[in-house]
């Protein structure tokens, strides 16, 4: 099998060749520690600050509001714990379908005496702004709602939630790891105080991400040590990674819009093909408020990992639920929260399209998917029961 079709861009993406090229000099020539006073240090620092400038241009914020971290998980941890621990106690509002980085940070805080409300979602995966409003209490210190869910791709109504939260003077954190560089994120309009965004989901390297922290947001550092990143994140910075991330963002700024339209078209083609050729399949997530390239389907009476393996043997990479939770074999908590029945939820498969995806790729996958699902169903006791 020589054909390889990668449809798992929500899990990770190949690094853009220009990004690799931008990083290279920072390994062997401009390798200094950005905290160092000498020229080697300054060269590294300059590269890092150019990258920070690209972030701030893209997000239309000031450079001082950008903190670099080691990944989306760290950004989420810093946002949630950093705000909470600065207060010492209180109540947090979040949703049941957040990434584990937010959910488990909240659970940790529950162990520290904080209270957390986990809001439900509707059948499309949407959090209701009214639910957020009703959940807010006088002692609420943080509202954290993701921008788009990685599994189903539903985009939350942050534009309705944010201003309402801000009106009440409560910090609003948005996990935008899956939307940053893919769909517009308007910090001012959405009333966002903290935004998590990551590199390896947008053709940058792994091991680097960012957190936007609106000026004046009261918070403490979570990783302790030196005075890096204006004391908000200790530790020698991943300079080459940050430089690459900066380049990746700069490229997304140019490509994002056209790419979103193209991927939406490919996604429609994919779903049209699947629904025409495979019986007993359903689409998960909101029909229109969604990530352009994310398609999440459930094949009834099929275990999703058998589809993943079957497609993998044909060179096609898709995911069974979120890559971050694979290894566990429970139905996706996101689909369960959306009320998807278990016999469907067990058969959920996510295809996430990206820069390299072509029409020919989609057609090839359609060709191999339908016989595969049929064969798996034939093996199943349910099919003849």
């Amino acid at each position, binding site marked *: 099998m020589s054909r390889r079709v990668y449809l798992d861009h929500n899990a990770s993406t190949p690094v853009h060749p220009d990004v690799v090229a931008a990083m290279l000099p920072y390994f062997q020539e401009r390798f200094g520690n950005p905290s160092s006073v000498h020229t080697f240090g300054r060269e590294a620092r300059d590269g890092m600050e150019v990258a920070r400038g690209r972030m701030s241009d893209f997000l239309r914020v000031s450079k001082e509001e950008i903190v670099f971290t080691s990944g989306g998980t760290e950004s989420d941890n810093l946002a949630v714990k950093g705000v909470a621990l600065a207060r010492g106690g209180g109540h947090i509002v979040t949703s049941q379908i957040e990434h584990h980085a937010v959910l488990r940070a909240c659970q940790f805080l529950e162990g520290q005496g904080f209270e957390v409300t986990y809001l439900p979602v509707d059948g499309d995966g949407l959090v209701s702004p009214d639910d957020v409003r009703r959940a807010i209490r006088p002692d609420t210190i943080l509202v954290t709602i993701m921008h788009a869910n990685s599994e189903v791709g539903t985009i939350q109504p942050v534009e309705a939630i944010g201003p309402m939260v801000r009106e009440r003077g409560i910090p609003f954190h948005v996990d935008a790891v899956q939307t940053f560089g893919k769909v517009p994120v308007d910090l001012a309009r959405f009333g966002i105080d903290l935004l998590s965004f990551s590199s390896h989901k947008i053709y940058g390297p792994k091991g680097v991400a960012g957190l936007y922290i609106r000026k004046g947001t009261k918070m403490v550092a979570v990783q302790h040590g030196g005075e890096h990143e204006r004391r908000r994140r200790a530790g020698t910075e991943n300079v080459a990674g940050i430089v690459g991330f900066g380049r990746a963002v700069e490229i997304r700024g140019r490509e994002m819009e056209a790419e979103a339209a193209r991927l939406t078209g490919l996604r429609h083609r994919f779903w049209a093909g699947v629904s025409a050729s495979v019986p007993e399949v359903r689409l998960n997530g909101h029909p229109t408020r969604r990530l352009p390239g994310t398609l999440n389907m459930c094949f009834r*009476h099929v275990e*999703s990992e*058998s589809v993943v393996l079957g497609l993998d043997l044909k060179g096609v990479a898709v995911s069974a639920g979120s890559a971050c939770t694979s290894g566990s074999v429970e139905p996706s908590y996101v689909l369960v929260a959306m009320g998807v029945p278990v016999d469907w939820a067990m058969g959920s498969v996510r295809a996430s399209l990206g820069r390299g995806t072509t029409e020919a790729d989609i057609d090839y996958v359609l060709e191999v998917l339908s016989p595969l699902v049929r064969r798996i169903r*034939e*093996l*199943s*006791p349910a099919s003849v029961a």
Partner: protein
Amino acid sequence: MNYSQILIDHFRRPRNAGMMRHPDGVGEESFDGCGDLARFYLRVVDGRVAEVRFQTYGCGPTIAASSAGTELASGRPVTELLTLGEAEITEAVDGLPAERAHAAQVVAGALRAAARDSLTRRGSPSQAKESEHV
């Protein structure tokens, strides 16, 4: 997952898949963790497995282990299957990652259940005892 070539071959071309009409024994085992379910059908001749078929709902390894399980059971004395362990199934697919160990559990359990069922139906405990010494 790092699956063995043997496992992948069984997944690609499962042996003895499908239902059996009027079997001498049927057994099922499921795994609550993920809803995996394997069902085995046995045809028994002279106390030995003459034919075996499976139907399985589950991830790739469970399907593959089911297929390997039919090859393993085929021709064997039914009573031997009563004590079939998951280790033997794991070995038959040349190993399983720790997170997929349940595949062998489900298959071994279902084969044991099918063997028990066939012995119960025949209602010949003596035969079973004899076989124990085979």
